[in-house]
């Protein structure tokens, strides 16, 4: 490696330039390491040891950075560490996504349409206008009173599914995420996590068409869609009834909804 021009032109030029690693290492050790220790420094260290021992420090807990056992650092290199970090990353990202979809879903629509998602025990009719349908979402002080009669036969599953689909889309576009229950329900409805995108595309296309056709959506067209989907129908219907009974939220989203219910007369 030594490229320094050698004026001397000695025969040993090449070998002299290329010091072996072992030579360099020996030189480094020679220049940095002194055998023997300073007695005073040693005594200070031992005194610190004594103090810690007498204070009972020996019973302190081992943290991750204190564990240097061979098992931990010999071959964790690739497999275990990689596996764990992939697992952790997926959990983290998944959690963030789910949480943020909930955020994306609730604040925009929460004030208006959450009551319809979780109707009072007596109120059978549901309101499609409560959903965040594009173009159909107008400020409405009393959605329940207005829209419940308008679409009495609108089934719950379609609403939930479409809302979740929109939330899912929003989450993908804005990096926000969905709450866990909603996400799981959507996955169940789509019949698997990998199907969610296609499922939602289909669903939202449907609802956009409907929105264009008839403003707030034609319930008659919507009727068919949810019933073709057994998972979503069962899940959402079941859930709406349960939350109406208990009122107490199992999670943040339901809690919010039940509060909204309380505020509603």
């Amino acid at each position, binding site marked *: 490696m030594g490229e320094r021009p050698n004026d001397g032109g000695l025969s040993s030029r090449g070998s002299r330039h290329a010091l072996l690693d072992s*030579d*360099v290492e*020996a030189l480094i050790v020679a220049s940095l390491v*002194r055998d023997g*220790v300073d007695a005073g420094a040693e005594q200070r260290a031992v005194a610190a*040891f004594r103090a810690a021992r007498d204070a009972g420090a020996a019973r302190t807990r081992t943290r991750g*950075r*204190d564990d240097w056992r*061979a098992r931990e*650092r010999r071959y964790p290199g690739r497999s275990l560490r990689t596996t764990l970090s992939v697992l952790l990353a997926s959990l983290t990202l998944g959690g963030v996504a789910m949480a943020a979809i909930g955020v994306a879903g609730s604040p925009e629509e929460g004030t208006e349409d959450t009551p319809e998602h979780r109707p009072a025990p007596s109120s059978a009719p549901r309101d499609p206008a409560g959903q965040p349908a594009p173009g159909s979402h107008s400020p409405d002080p009393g959605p329940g009173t207005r829209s419940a009669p308008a679409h009495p036969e609108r089934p719950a599953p379609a609403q939930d599914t479409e809302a979740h689909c929109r939330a899912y889309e929003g989450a993908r576009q804005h990096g926000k995420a969905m709450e866990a229950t909603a996400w799981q329900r959507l996955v169940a409805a789509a019949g698997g996590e990998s199907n969610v995108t296609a499922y939602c595309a289909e669903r939202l296309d449907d609802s956009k068409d409907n929105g264009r056709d008839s403003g707030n959506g034609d319930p008659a067209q919507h009727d068919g869609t949810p019933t073709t989907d057994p998972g979503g129908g069962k899940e959402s219907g079941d859930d709406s009834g349960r939350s109406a009974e208990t009122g107490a939220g199992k999670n943040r989203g339901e809690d919010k909804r039940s509060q909204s219910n309380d505020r509603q007369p």
Partner: protein
Amino acid sequence: MGQGAAPRRGQAYDGELGAAVARAQQGDEAAFAVAYRLVQPGLLGYLRGLVGDDAEDVASDAWLEIARDLGRFRGDGAGFRGWTATIARHRALDHLRRQRVRPRSSALEQDVLELPGPQNTYDLALEAISTEHALELVRGLPRDQAEAVLLRVVVGLDGPAAARVLGKRPGAVRTAAHRGLKRLARQLGAESVTDEAPRTLGEST
């Protein structure tokens, strides 16, 4: 290492060190002193490469923490060297951070220059290169290379352990150590010619 027996500095004593640490964790004061004497030279060498003549102070701080947290440690002799190097490194980085706030003369430290000569009878080929100059060269390396070299060579850590101390991937540390050594070899090799070292490994006249 060029010193025959010892594969890496420190590793030869790992069995003894591990036993001493285990006894120290049971409260044996003398065993702690044994561990100190086994570890301190390499640790101090590493710190010299990092902080120069403040190495003794930084090492003292590190040993206070080592003594305090010894009960938490789990591992053998080699593990203990890695663990102590991690603690010493954190103290050294703290020290460097403080120095950056309150800068001081960075001239090559006097007491390093005045330190006694090489510990071992390394009086062969590279004798002509002054040890303090070698230290200067080490400290002139980029930080990652210098640290990788020091942890491998002076503290005697293996690749994964050095990587753990530095919080980097083993591959990155291996590369940094390799580059650092090559760079030093180039500089030292050039100088060994300039200084007309008379007995360079026997291949010169």
